[in-house]
């Protein structure tokens, strides 16, 4: 649901304020262990939002979003090490710039085509980066690359909080409160009609894609500095994209708060499973089952349950169970 219901927004605003206060005071309330978990949850909420920018609002599925997360991480790692030794805050915009260049190179030719080619191209791009980073010397090969340690949990918590808050603020302003968002949603729903309304769809799609990629790179940069060590699998790995996709689908594709809900929920489940069972392949199966179930029974995600289209969503789920569909292809 893209519009605010006509009813009062006060409860929502109060809830948002309470969450923000809670987030700001978090470091005073919990120990470092839980602060790390909170930092991770913020990162995933932000990453899910960055995936949703393109996937939810523009309707293009990116199966290689980890590529941009990894580019941000690698640029920061590369520039903070010898011979550059640059300060962290300088490396972040550098990573954003590199990411933007790559996004244009991939997006310009493939976004013109139907979504499937784009999905394949992004997926292939992320895999090429894994293979490339594993083979090259300057990336540290499979072994990876270390960063100068900075063991200040609060710094990383607030860095992630700031990045996530900015990502959500920007998404809200651009996609829920401006002309730009209308253009993006228009081309998502019907591209020829959007063109007929004077919208340069190729350009708007590319802008959206670059925005989505660049925000992911910021989280990659903070992540690299935070964990002080990265390797190709840990920042480019397909599992990172898988997780983002599940979080967005679970929370609600194309909704502002869906990715936050899905991101935090899934990350907490992940940590709990890790605590009780250790690193397990079962989590992968669970992710897959979650995607299947959400697509079949909750196509609007958790956010869809709260948006007044509830009865609609349930009806559809029920209709699907008995196999009632409308015939005919929709573009």
């Amino acid at each position, binding site marked *: 649901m893209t519009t605010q219901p006509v009813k009062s927004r006060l409860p929502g605003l109060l809830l948002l304020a309470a969450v923000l206060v809670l987030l700001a005071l978090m470091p005073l309330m919990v120990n470092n262990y839980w602060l790390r978990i909170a930092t991770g949850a913020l990162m995933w909420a932000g990453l899910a939002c960055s995936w949703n920018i393109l996937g939810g609002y523009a309707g293009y599925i990116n199966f290689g979003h980890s590529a941009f997360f990894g580019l941000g991480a690698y640029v920061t790692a590369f520039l903070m090490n010898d011979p550059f030794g640059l300060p962290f805050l300088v490396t972040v915009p550098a990573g954003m710039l590199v990411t933007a260049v790559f996004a244009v190179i991939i997006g310009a030719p493939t976004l013109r085509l139907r979504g499937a080619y784009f999905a394949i191209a992004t997926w292939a791009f992320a895999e090429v980066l894994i293979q490339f980073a594993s083979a090259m010397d300057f990336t540290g090969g499979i072994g990876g690359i270390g960063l100068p340690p900075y063991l200040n949990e609060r710094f990383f918590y607030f860095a992630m909080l700031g990045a996530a808050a900015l990502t959500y603020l920007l998404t809200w302003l651009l996609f829920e409160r401006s*002309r730009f968002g209308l253009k993006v949603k228009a081309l998502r729903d019907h591209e020829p*009609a959007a063109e007929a309304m004077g919208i340069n769809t190729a350009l708007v799609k590319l802008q959206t894609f670059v925005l989505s990629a660049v925000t992911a790179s910021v989280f990659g940069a903070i992540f690299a500095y935070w964990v002080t060590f990265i390797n190709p699998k840990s920042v480019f790995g397909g599992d990172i994209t898988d997780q983002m996709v599940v979080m967005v689908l679970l929370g609600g594709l194309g909704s502002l708060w869906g990715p936050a809900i899905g991101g935090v929920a899934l990350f907490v489940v992940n940590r709990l499973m890790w605590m009780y069972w250790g690193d397990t392949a079962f989590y992968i199966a669970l992710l897959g089952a979650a995607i299947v179930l959400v697509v079949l029974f909750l196509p609007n995600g958790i956010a869809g349950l709260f948006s007044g289209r509830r009865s609609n969503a349930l009806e559809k789920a029920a209709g699907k169970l008995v196999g009632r569909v409308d015939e005919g292809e929709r573009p």
Partner: protein
Amino acid sequence: MSPAAQTPAAGGEPILVVRDLYKHFGGIKATNGVTLEVRRQEIAGLIGPNGSGKSTLFSLVAGTVAPDSGQIRFDGHEIAGKSAHAVARLGLARTFQIPALFENMTVTENLLAAAAEGRWQGARERAAETLALLRLEHVAENRASDLSGGQQKLLEFGRAVMRQASLVLLDEVTAGVHPNIRKIILEAITRLRERGITFLIIEHDMEMVRSVCDRIIVMDSGRVVTSGTFSEIVRNSEVMQTYLGRPQ
């Protein structure tokens, strides 16, 4: 006598000039040398049997499809081969035969999206006016996909209105709708023409053509065969029989 027939094409200066427009798809000659003019502030009807090239002509003019050869001059600009969004920005709006709505957006958002590229100032007020003009206020916050077929046609038309275009191409905008909705659209067309907007309308319904169009252009086999007022076309019984299949 219908009111439209009493109003000769105002101005007379052409807003759209199409010359020798060719477009072949494989062996099919969709348009085979179309030449026509639409004058400023007139309501021109485009009729002809199925497959005569009317919709292809719309796509060519609107920039959805690039022509093989020929010229399209719109409001002083040569637009043949320009992209659809560039043509739209010059002040040409179109509707799609099958409503091409932004289905996951509300009715109001559909109208606003149509104004997103262009003059944004006052867009919300214009959207409200358009809703009133088309009697869609009660569904303003509904999702476009939840509308009835007739309401979808109205919204399709409303988006073209929101473009504030100087020329609007309507592709069977009243086909298959309830007479009440047809009446709303017809009134809107007449009122918008008074504000200086030109219309080119593809239409199969002769009653609609008679009541609203100043001039009628008849196409067949990818060419324009004749044009004139409704009574002139009707008098040409050969045209009526061959192309409209309805002897008078």
